[in-house]
């Protein structure tokens, strides 16, 4: 059955490839690929069925054999090889899981709980890991293996972590599904670029201004739409994201249209020194000031620390605000907005605050992006960026700060490492979003720790055990 469906699914799109022959469109059959795909899907489905009916052992062996063979056997196309390998891996994991489950007669719910418990343990560990991770992040530029590529990757990851933490305020805490977060990122980036180029403002003046402008944009966009219910809200924010992008694309006089803005000024060292080899007269260069040899890496390292500091600022803010009435009201809003109103909480103000604050962080991240790239265009702010940031928040577990970090490593880090498979990047990104939702609809780390305790503090693990009423 599954094989048949796969056959039908792939027959037209994979089997008959449209090619242009002498500027006329025609089709080129690839029926062998279709047959193989269907066969592979059939095998996989068969494997799963057999495994489910009580023979996981042999299936596991077969899957592992396929996995091994997949590397060496010749395949007609690369795509099929990837399909075979991924399929075999999935079957292997599923059968392993089945083997494990046989020794472990627990219900789905209990297993979910035990996963939650793992999450809780991990969160316990973050008290330890957190500072270690920060220390590691601080030391990174001076580690022996660190080169330009590692630093660039670090900056990229930290930018997404910052965006993830920013969006977490709206999505994770306040429970508002914002599909247009990238609009504020764009507003921040363009604000910086335009302010710096038109008025010659320095980066350090522009950073807060860009944040302010983005949060103003958040207020103006947010005010009319915050009354809407969940799904409608999501669609409207998506619409706003697109409106901002279309305006950037078409308002050529201001934004440079599709060509974007180039030559955006680089940041200086807190306004006292530049990162240039030969500073303009009357100015000091960073390497002269500290008596170092000039190196272009200095600027990269500085940018790295800058984004690290900004990201940590967002994190600190979120951790603090969760313990304040505003943060608690956000979470209450996520849980039940009608009860919130009945307790005298003004939903609109609270939501606006979340929207504006998240927008501000998005804007700050945007101006960092602009200064790092030196060039921005509407292309960098498409819906897919919003989706990626949202995926980071949701996959990590809504409201979980450490979850955002882990999800960023997965979503941004992994594809960067496996650059050879670049063409499958977005494909597997989409598939991954679906799979993780199926596996854990609440995200990887969904344990939530109370922000205030009546009784003496215990570890998250114990609290978790208590909270779910386990003995």
């Amino acid at each position, binding site marked *: 059955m599954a094989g048949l*469906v796969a056959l*039908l*699914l792939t*027959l*037209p*799109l*994979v089997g*008959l*490839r*449209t090619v*242009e022959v002498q500027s*006329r*469109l*025609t*089709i080129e059959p690839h029926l062998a690929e279709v047959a193989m795909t269907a066969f592979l899907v059939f095998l996989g489905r068969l494997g799963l069925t057999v495994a489910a009916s009580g023979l996981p052992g042999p299936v596991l062996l077969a899957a592992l054999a396929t996995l091994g063979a997949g590397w060496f056997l010749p395949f007609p196309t690369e*795509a099929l090889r990837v399909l075979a390998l991924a399929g075999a891996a999935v079957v292997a994991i599923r059968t392993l899981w089945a083997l494990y489950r046989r020794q472990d007669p627990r219900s789905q719910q209990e297993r979910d709980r035990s996963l939650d418990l793992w999450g809780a343990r991990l969160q316990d560990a973050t008290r330890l890991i957190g500072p270690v991770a920060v220390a590691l992040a601080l030391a990174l530029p001076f580690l022996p293996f660190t080169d330009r590529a590692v630093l660039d990757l670090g900056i990229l990851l930290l930018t997404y972590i910052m965006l993830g933490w920013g969006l977490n305020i709206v999505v994770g805490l306040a429970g508002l*599904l914002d*599909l247009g977060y990238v609009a504020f990122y764009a507003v921040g980036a363009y604000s910086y670029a335009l302010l710096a180029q038109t008025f010659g403002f320095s980066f350090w003046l522009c950073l807060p201004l860009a944040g302010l402008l983005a949060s103003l944009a958040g207020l103006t966009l947010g005010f*009319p*739409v915050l*009354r*809407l*219910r*969940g*799904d*409608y809200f*999501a*669609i*409207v924010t*998506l*619409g*706003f994201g*697109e*409106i901002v992008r*279309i*305006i950037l*694309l*078409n308002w050529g006089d201001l934004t440079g249209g599709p060509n974007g803005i180039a030559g955006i000024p680089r940041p200086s060292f807190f306004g006292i020194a530049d990162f240039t080899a030969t500073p303009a007269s009357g100015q000091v260069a960073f390497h002269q000031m500290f008596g170092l040899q000039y190196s272009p890496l200095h600027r990269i390292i500085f940018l790295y620390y800058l984004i690290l500091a900004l990201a940590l600022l967002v994190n600190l803010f979120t951790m603090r605000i969760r313990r304040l009435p505003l943060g608690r009201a956000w979470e209450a809003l996520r849980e039940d907005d*009608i009860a919130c109103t009945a307790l005298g909480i003004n939903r609109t103000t609270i939501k606006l605050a979340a929207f504006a604050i998240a927008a501000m962080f998005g804007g700050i991240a945007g101006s960092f992006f602009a200064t790092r790239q030196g060039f921005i265009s509407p292309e960098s702010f498409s*819906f*897919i960026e919003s*989706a990626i940031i*949202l*995926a980071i928040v*949701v996959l990590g577990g*809504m409201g979980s700060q450490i979850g955002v970090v882990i999800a960023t490593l997965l979503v941004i880090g992994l594809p960067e490492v496996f650059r050879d498979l670049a*063409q*499958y990047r*977005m*494909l597997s*990104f*989409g*598939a*991954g*979003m*679906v799979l993780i*939702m*199926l596996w854990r*609809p*609440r995200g990887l780390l969904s344990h939530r720790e109370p922000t205030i305790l009546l009784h003496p503090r215990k570890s998250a693990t114990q609290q978790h055990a208590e909270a779910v009423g386990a003995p």
Partner: protein
Amino acid sequence: MDYFLQQLINGVTLGAIYGLVAIGYTMVYGIIGMINFAHGEIYMIGAFIAVISFLAVGLLGITWVPLAVVLVLILTMLFTAVYGWTVERLAYRPLRGSVRLAPLISAIGMSIFLQNYVQLVQGARVKPLPPVMSDVIVLADQAGGFRVSVSALQLLILALTVALMIGFTQVIARTSLGRAQRACEQDMKMASLLGIDVDRTISLTFVMGAALAGVAGVMVTMYYGVVDFYIGFLAGIKAFTAAVLGGIGSLPGAMLGGLLIGLIEAFWSAYFSVEYKDVATFVILVLVLIFRPTGLLGRPDLEKV
């Protein structure tokens, strides 16, 4: 005046296409209360399959246009229906009764997946298709004036849409499937207690929605003659806007919304600016949601306390 008339014709044609896609949104939202984000991609896949089957039919030597069109329609509806069924089965059914946001996220993931899947297997380049029907009926042709024309294709699109709409309304109103759908819309748990196979009903809803999106895909392929893997996103948003404008959950509403969106887009492009025509759609979406969230033909809906 003639220019106006021409835009009216263009807008109605466009609106028919949006309306067909909007029906898919409105039915799914009505029955499981979820925005099927991947629906726009199904429409895009429909357009691709249309291109491919036109070429295939051509290669098989069928050159009589009506037969070719019918064949292509049938093929496309069949294949998109399978896609609709699979998407529901894989990405949404396991998440029924889960956290509210989970199916929406899963749908976004699905949409990204489908887009890249098509890009991967069919290439990122725009696919041009030679015109299939080029008969034009000239309605008004003054010497030196503007020529108003309606093409046979536009007539075909309109006729097909009207026929599908009538057939569809009958299905919902008369058949047991339609009754089951309406029952699930009201109360899924109760419906299943009364012996309605809820899973099957929902699957069939997706299948029907996808088939209609497939028809829209065929139409857009014939109408514009070019297809690329990115058309699903924008068309999806516009069709969703149409569904909301007409009142989500209402079939005539979806059609009406589609027509309005098509007309607005045509007139906006004609009289204001082509660049901002998408902004116009979004602004309408926002305005409708703020001032009349139930749409034009929707039922009033009070916040349940």
